[in-house]
């Protein structure tokens, strides 16, 4: 088997046994990128030389018997809204087309300390706004399973590159589903940690009360290991949870006899593809066969999460994107006559339409006369949604739901922004309610496209979520890989 096809723990074993070297593993992924990325287009930049140098350095450390980190030579790809020192970080926006950070994000520092190898930066929807990666200022990404379809978004590049074996793992970010939805569309595992678990220092902000960085991997255990590495209190992020962090691998293999898992009835009342519904039903049966107790629960406010989300996240992003002014870094317009024009021209040329739309919407809902009716109302609804979920977690361990109402759709098939927004229906409530959730591959549709299933747990209860996901993954036995065509018309 080509080395690039390995999962994380498999690769670690081979590295430790000296069956393979870090350089060989990195080279294999780089070769894979050269082979398939012209078709998949998951990446913004590739760090070939830097990666090989780093891999060699790790092999050197190993040869000398020096201590090595938990990743010791594993190649990873990082979403382009996460700052990597001396490596172009663009958030897939023209606004940052030439931005090279002078610092590493907290998560990158942690990965470095544990000896990962950065091989590339992943494409995304511009500034994380979107569900298809079609909003990238550079180019769209193609779903490896069918190049005519989208990989999802906004972490479309991160999910696609793992599905295509361009790296052993990737990092994405999730504000309303941006890790879980692409993970489902691409047939890989994606985790949105509880807000506060992973430091946002070095993550280009979209919505400050919702954003979280998370791992995208080939299986559940890989994701849990990465959670151990990227999580933790960071003094530089005042929203980073000050608490003791668990070992996310702890108890992951325990059986799930007696675990209470909620079936959210309002979720199931929504329209979704038949394949997705049957895949979900199959998951329910498997969980029951493993001794879990499936109970129907009601989340009457779940349907309002989408509206609350688009108000809150737009308001927050309007504020967060005010910093892009063409002065200290990034793009600046060539023509302007005064400061105000410089700001307007820079931002209008530097931002794409979806970004502009949300910034305008955000300022609208925050403006006097509308603040109470929209923003304040949305914040109150957020409380209701949070309470609705919390109520159940007193008596259940997790909730299981579909991730998306459809499988990956074709490029250009969403006629309006609103059409795109409503596909986030199942994922958004998790961010709004401050919970944790993950998507694992559950099956393949009649048309050969991956279907995901979502496991939701209460805030800071990732271990419960990983345990159930690990068991379900074992029973599902999903091991398909996409057969990547050379071009969409093959």
């Amino acid at each position: 088997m080509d080395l690039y096809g390995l999962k994380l723990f498999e690769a670690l074993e081979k590295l430790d046994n000296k069956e393979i070297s870090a350089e060989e593993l990195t080279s294999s992924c780089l070769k894979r990128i050269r082979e398939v990325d012209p078709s998949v287009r998951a990446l913004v930049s590739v760090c070939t030389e830097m990666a090989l140098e780093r891999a060699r350095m790790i092999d050197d450390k190993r040869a000398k018997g020096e201590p090595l980190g938990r990743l010791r030579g594993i190649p990873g790809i990082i979403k382009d809204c996460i700052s990597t020192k001396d490596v172009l970080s663009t958030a897939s926006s023209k606004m940052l087309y030439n931005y090279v950070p002078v610092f590493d994000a907290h998560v990158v520092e942690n990965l470095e300390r544990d000896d990962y190898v950065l091989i590339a930066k992943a494409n995304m929807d511009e500034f994380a706004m979107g569900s298809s990666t079609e909003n990238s200022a550079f180019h769209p990404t193609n779903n490896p399973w069918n190049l005519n379809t989208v990989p999802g978004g906004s972490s479309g590049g991160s999910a696609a590159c793992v599905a295509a074996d361009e790296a052993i793992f990737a990092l994405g970010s999730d504000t309303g589903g941006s890790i879980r939805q692409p993970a489902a569309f691409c047939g890989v595992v994606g985790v949105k940690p509880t807000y506060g678990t992973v430091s946002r220092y070095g993550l280009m902000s979209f919505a400050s009360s919702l954003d979280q960085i998370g791992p995208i991997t080939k299986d559940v255990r890989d994701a849990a290991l990465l959670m151990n590495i990227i999580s933790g209190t960071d003094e530089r992020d005042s929203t980073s949870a000050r608490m003791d962090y668990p070992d996310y691998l702890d108890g992951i293999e325990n059986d799930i006899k007696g675990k209470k898992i909620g079936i959210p009835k309002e979720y199931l009342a929504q329209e979704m593809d038949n394949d997705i519904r049957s895949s979900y039903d199959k998951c329910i049966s498997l969980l029951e066969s493993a001794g879990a107790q499936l109970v129907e629960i009601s989340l009457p406010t779940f349907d309002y999460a989408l509206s609350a989300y688009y108000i809150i996240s737009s308001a927050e992003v309007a504020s967060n994107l005010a910093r892009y002014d063409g002065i200290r870094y990034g793009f600046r317009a060539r023509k302007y006559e005064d400061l105000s024009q410089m700001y307007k021209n820079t931002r209008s040329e530097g931002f794409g339409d979806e970004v502009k739309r949300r910034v305008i919407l955000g300022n609208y809902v925050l403006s006097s006369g509308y603040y109470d009716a929209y923003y304040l109302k949305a914040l109150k609804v957020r409380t209701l949604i949070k309470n609705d979920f919390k109520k159940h977690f007193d008596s259940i361990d997790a909730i299981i739901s579909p991730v998306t109402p459809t499988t990956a759709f074709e490029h250009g098939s969403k006629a309006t922004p609103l059409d795109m927004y409503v596909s986030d229906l199942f994922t958004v409530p998790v961010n709004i309610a401050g919970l944790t959730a993950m998507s694992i591959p559950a099956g393949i549709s009649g048309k050969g496209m991956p279907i995901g299933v979502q496991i939701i747990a209460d805030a800071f209860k990732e271990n419960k979520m990983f345990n159930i996901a690990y068991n379900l993954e074992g029973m599902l036995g999903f091991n398909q890989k996409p057969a990547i065509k050379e071009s969409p018309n093959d």
Partner: protein
Amino acid sequence: MKVTVDDVKKMAALSMLNIDESKLEEFRKNLEAILEHVMKLNELDTEGIEPTTYILDQKNIFREDIPEENKFDKESLLKNAPKREGDSFIVPRVIE
């Protein structure tokens, strides 16, 4: 909630954005549709409900006011500047 082209222009100006004349109607339509959709929230009674501005329980995260060593040199902080001169960022005249 009706949105006019004028509303879009006003909000764009507040956001320090220009919207192309040719795109104004499209923006207006999309914004109106989104605002219509989110009106759904009015179906919920939020009387007496506290707004959630922040999802975690922790608050008032402070640190000691102790000066730390600056990890970054001036040059690296200025190197991304679109327009610079010496140690300064160059901007259009601010005061007439």
